[in-house]
């Protein structure tokens, strides 16, 4: 009996501090874990969005780059952080979807170990080839790769990277398994592609716009439903006759599981406000990003996205027979 009373008292107390904490939140700077290196696409998006969210929340969002193991090191750290709203993470396609199939010993479950805050922005994937690749459009490209499978080299930025995972999907659609040549990041891979050392790769639009418009490489198609303002001349995969290939490296904010709902709501609202801000939008669009509209925003939409993306990428990765760790 006594115990029951105590428990009840504890619960009331917890509830009181809980709502008080939500009201005061944020009382100090918030750590935003970015599981990738500073200067990369995810980092740049985090800094742009964090800049505006800091203004709304009245506290600085401090970016902490926790690099390693395809972003899973940083994500594991976020999972283990105090669920008080003072640590959140910028997850993405790799850390919160592809990782499930890639890392058999993954220390977290993207769907159950995090509270979704909201989708931030996606960077569309572009199919690229060396500048002297003998195919004038995507159809010819697919036919040529298929016919010359034994000679073809596909470059990627390392097992588990976005360029790797998305190209696996492309390969499975084209029905090919070319030699895949790993590089340490997209920079060196791009260097090899510009130097015609390898034949093709998939990469995020941020990294490729100037190389394509400058004629250093060929861009065959962009894997989104609509053309991108930054690359007006590159057709969509749907236009080019391969509408199954849809891929975008999405970035989204997550909080550790059990972060109080009112706090998560507050962060979601701040994110929404940032995504409507004109200057923030302009900056994101200049990167070639795809900014989510109404129905794709918010917590529920992100939860759905995570489960659908896990379902989309897991079979592709398993079929290719790769795993990390």
């Amino acid at each position, binding site marked *: 009996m006594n115990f029951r009373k105590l428990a009840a008292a504890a619960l009331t107390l917890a509830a009181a501090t809980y709502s008080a904490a939500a009201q005061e939140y944020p009382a100090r700077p918030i750590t935003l874990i970015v599981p990738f290196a500073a200067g990369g696409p995810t980092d740049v998006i985090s800094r742009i969005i964090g800049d505006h969210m800091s203004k709304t929340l009245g506290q600085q969002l401090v970016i902490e780059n926790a690099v390693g*193991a395809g972003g899973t090191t940083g994500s594991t750290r976020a999972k283990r952080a105090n669920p008080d709203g003072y640590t959140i993470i910028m997850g993405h396609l790799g850390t919160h979807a592809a990782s499930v199939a890639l890392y058999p010993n993954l220390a977290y479950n993207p769907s159950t170990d995090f509270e979704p805050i909201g989708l931030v922005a996606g960077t569309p994937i572009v199919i690229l080839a060396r500048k002297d690749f003998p195919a004038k459009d995507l159809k010819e490209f697919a036919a040529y790769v298929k016919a010359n499978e034994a000679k073809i080299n596909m470059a990627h930025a390392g*097992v588990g990277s976005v360029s790797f995972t998305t190209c696996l999907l492309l390969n499975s659609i084209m029905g090919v398994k070319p030699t895949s040549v790993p590089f340490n990041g997209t920079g060196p891979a791009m260097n090899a592609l510009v*130097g*015609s050392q390898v034949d093709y790769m998939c990469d995020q639009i941020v990294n490729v716009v100037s*190389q394509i418009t400058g004629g250093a490489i060929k861009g065959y198609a962009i894997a989104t439903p609509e053309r991108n303002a930054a690359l007006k001349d590159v057709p969509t995969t749907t236009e080019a006759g391969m509408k199954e290939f849809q891929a975008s490296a999405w970035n989204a904010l997550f909080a550790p599981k059990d972060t109080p709902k009112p706090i998560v709501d507050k962060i979601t609202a701040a994110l929404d406000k940032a995504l409507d801000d004109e200057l923030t939008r302009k900056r994101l669009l200049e990167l070639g990003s795809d900014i989510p509209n109404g129905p794709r925003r918010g917590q529920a939409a992100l939860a759905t996205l995570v489960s659908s993306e896990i379902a989309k990428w897991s079979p592709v990765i398993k079929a290719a027979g790769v795993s990390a760790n």
Partner: protein
Amino acid sequence: MDLVANLIHGFSVALSPINIGLCLVGALVGTLVGVLPGVGPVATIAMLLPITFGLPPVGALIMLAGIYYGAQYGGSTTSILVNIPGEASSVVTTLDGHQMARQGRAGPALAIAAIGSFFAGCVATVLVAALGAPLTVLALKFGPAEYFSLMVLGLVFAVVLAKGSIPKALAMIMLGLLLSMVGSDIETGQSRMAFDVPELSDGVGFVVVAMGVFGFAEIMRNLEMSQESRDVVNAKLTGLMPTLKDLKASAGAILRGTAIGSILGILPGGGAVIAAFAAYTFEKKMSKDPSRFGKGAIEGVAAPESANNAAAQTSFIPLLTLGIPPNAVMALMVGAMTIHGIVPGPQVMTKQPDLFWGMIASMWIGNAMLVIINLPLVGLWVRLLRVPYRMLFPAILIFCNIGNYSINNAPFDVSMTALFALLGYWLLKHDFEPAPMLLGYVLGPLMEENLRRAMLIARGDPMTFVQRPISAGLLALAVLLLVLAVLPMIRSKRNVVFVEGEN
């Protein structure tokens, strides 16, 4: 002429009061960061990125570039004074630089490093401006096979620069290679030699190894000496500035170091590191008395310092002409550009002439500023050595540990550094040189990755390394160097046999 007109335009941009101010801030911060062990330019630029939001893009990049080459200047200071290389490219500087400091010649060592860096920076800047675009072609000729051969050549440098026994140097290279294998396999993602420690899944960090094996081991060795012998290092300081004789001895080394650094800097990945080692090796081979190297030869400071600074400047070429970042700092610069809505790439030169030429002009101004900042500082740094060691070493340890921790915010790194310090101390006691190990450690992953890439592309045919002309040339050079290094050893052994036979 176009180039002149462009440069004048560049200087008109770079010489605006705000840009001069930002260049100065960058150079100052860079020097400071370079001097604080463990706090590298990568961490600093990452921290300063948000600040650049509010600045005009050209000014922001001028400042960030200033931090980068400023750190190259500052990095040599810790190498010389306390034997802690801040970056892979200043490892070689410890060899003769710290020896000079122990002999009371820290002043001339620091001054020659600054002078050499300035000269190299000026020459390399002109090179970036005049030959940026054509030189890019060279970088693109380098495929995986060429990189592999270049790394082999780099490892041979490690053998040549060893001052003691060659078998011991080889053992240290092997140890470095083994260390570099810790982490994830790049092709399969399999974890290797990580013993299920998640922190090891990305390998052992460079700062962890360098700080432990060089810096902390050195501190332990100093501590075991008696107070008097330690103070000898500090007491007999002779002259702050290099003598005419020093300058004469260094002039050639600076010229050759600049040339080697300028060429190797263009190659993405490891260019600056190999440049410093190559320049040192080259000087040692050129020297009439190679035995002075490793014992405080001023050329051994001048050559690698000129080379790494030249390489630091020319490493902007791939970034500015192709938009491809050749190293972590350049990747951050790309980030800074994209934050400002500038997409780095082949069109930066034509579409953003203010940015391109302004940055190039600012590099020259920045280098001049660095010499003006650094030469008077030499006196201050040298005076720092007069601080009693019992007060100096805890400060060094604290700064190192803070810097080390801040790289990944990982306590694990700090503990690992302690382990490497013990290893380094043991190596010191048994006359193993750590420099070849560090070179093996830095070049190991590059060598492995490129070997595997080259083999994948050639479908398993090892002939690719000799069929491609650049690769074959590099391998031939490596063999030649190795023969030159090993020959005297065999000859001296024969002499020993003869001597014994006569007895």
